[in-house]
């Protein structure tokens, strides 16, 4: 089995500040991290590998410093990683990015055909959730998006059955391989990586492919290949301040429970609104 995971380096939006004047992200204020959804995608691929055998390869696109996210994936248990990095990719929107990643994946699968592709549900910087499905479309592969559980997997029959999170419940779907799966965070808890993985990651030098290393039509890359126009960026409206409950632990619990039960109708079927 060969599992490929797409990962992205993103600014940590839990730390990042929005410039109040220009409404753009002040990226300098935030550390770069692996997109949190993607780390769960890697974890799930590694779990399948540990159970059914095979190999996990991660692919990322980004500036040279994005090798750090590939090293992070090695910590999590991935076997190999490739970074595609070139000025020609700069400015790519989701269409161009899915094209570049597809071409990189094609090269990776020349050596060893790919059975399952994993990706995070979306990246926390763009929130588009388009790149994973975009790759699947280009490969004419089924997509199972927002997966929260892998129920069964058969390497012989090449079938996977998963639970998908949908609007008002859970959908249980089965698909033939190869398939592309995008994951929610609740699909697993990240394992605290064993020390040998940490040492391997610290020593690891990922492959870096430039635009010349993969077969591409340059017109479909970068700004040229990106039809997306950013119309306007604005800060979300400030949340109105909640009520701060103070006192001892007992008092706080009592106040909150009173409010939930008496004001919001908890336990009476009214639900918390």
């Amino acid at each position, binding site marked *: 089995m060969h599992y490929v995971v797409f990962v992205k380096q993103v600014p940590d939006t839990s*730390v990042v500040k929005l410039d109040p004047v220009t409404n753009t992200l002040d990226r300098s204020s935030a550390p770069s991290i692996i997109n949190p959804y993607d780390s769960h995608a890697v974890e799930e691929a590694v779990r399948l590998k540990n159970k059914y055998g095979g190999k996990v390869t991660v692919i990322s696109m980004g500036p040279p410093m994005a090798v750090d996210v590939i090293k992070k994936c090695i910590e999590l248990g991935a076997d190999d990683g490739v970074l595609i990095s070139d000025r020609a990719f700069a400015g790519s929107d989701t269409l161009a990015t899915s094209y570049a990643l597809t071409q990189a994946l094609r090269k990776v699968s020349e050596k060893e055909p790919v059975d399952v592709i994993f990706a995070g549900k979306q990246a926390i910087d763009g929130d588009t959730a388009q790149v994973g499905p975009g790759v699947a479309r280009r490969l004419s592969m089924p997509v199972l998006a927002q997966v929260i559980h892998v129920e069964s997997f058969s390497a012989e029959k090449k079938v996977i059955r998963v639970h998908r999170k949908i609007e008002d419940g859970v959908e249980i779907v089965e698909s033939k391989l190869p398939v592309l799966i995008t994951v929610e965070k609740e699909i697993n808890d990240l394992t605290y990586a064993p020390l040998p993985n940490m040492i391997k990651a610290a020593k690891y030098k990922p492959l870096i492919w430039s635009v010349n290393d993969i077969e591409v039509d340059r017109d479909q890359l970068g700004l040229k290949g990106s039809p997306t126009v950013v119309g306007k960026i604005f800060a979300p409206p400030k949340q109105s301040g909640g009520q701060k409950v103070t006192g*001892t632990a*007992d008092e706080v619990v009592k106040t909150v429970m009173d409010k939930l039960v008496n004001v919001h109708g908890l336990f009476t079927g009214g639900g918390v609104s």
Partner: protein
Amino acid sequence: MSQPLKKVNVDDLQYLTRFVSDKESHLHIKDHNICKTKCEEKHCTVFCPAQVYKWEGERMFVGFEGCHECGSCRIGCPHDNIEWKYPKGGLGVVFRLA
């Protein structure tokens, strides 16, 4: 004599600092009974720079999530009643500046 110290809300200070909390506490009161019966002063509730320790009448509350991992409580507890270790790798306080 000198003026009393200026009051400040420690929550407003703590808000400036980044913490990535573990689910489990890295700070443990060895024997809650000692805090209750043997420790009049409860120094830790005063000197802890993050006000991690709060006496709630009956029991010592330990808000480990806001701990700066300085070690003062371990050293300053007159009854050696605090089991102190570092949070799991990568967790706990994350200083971004000085």
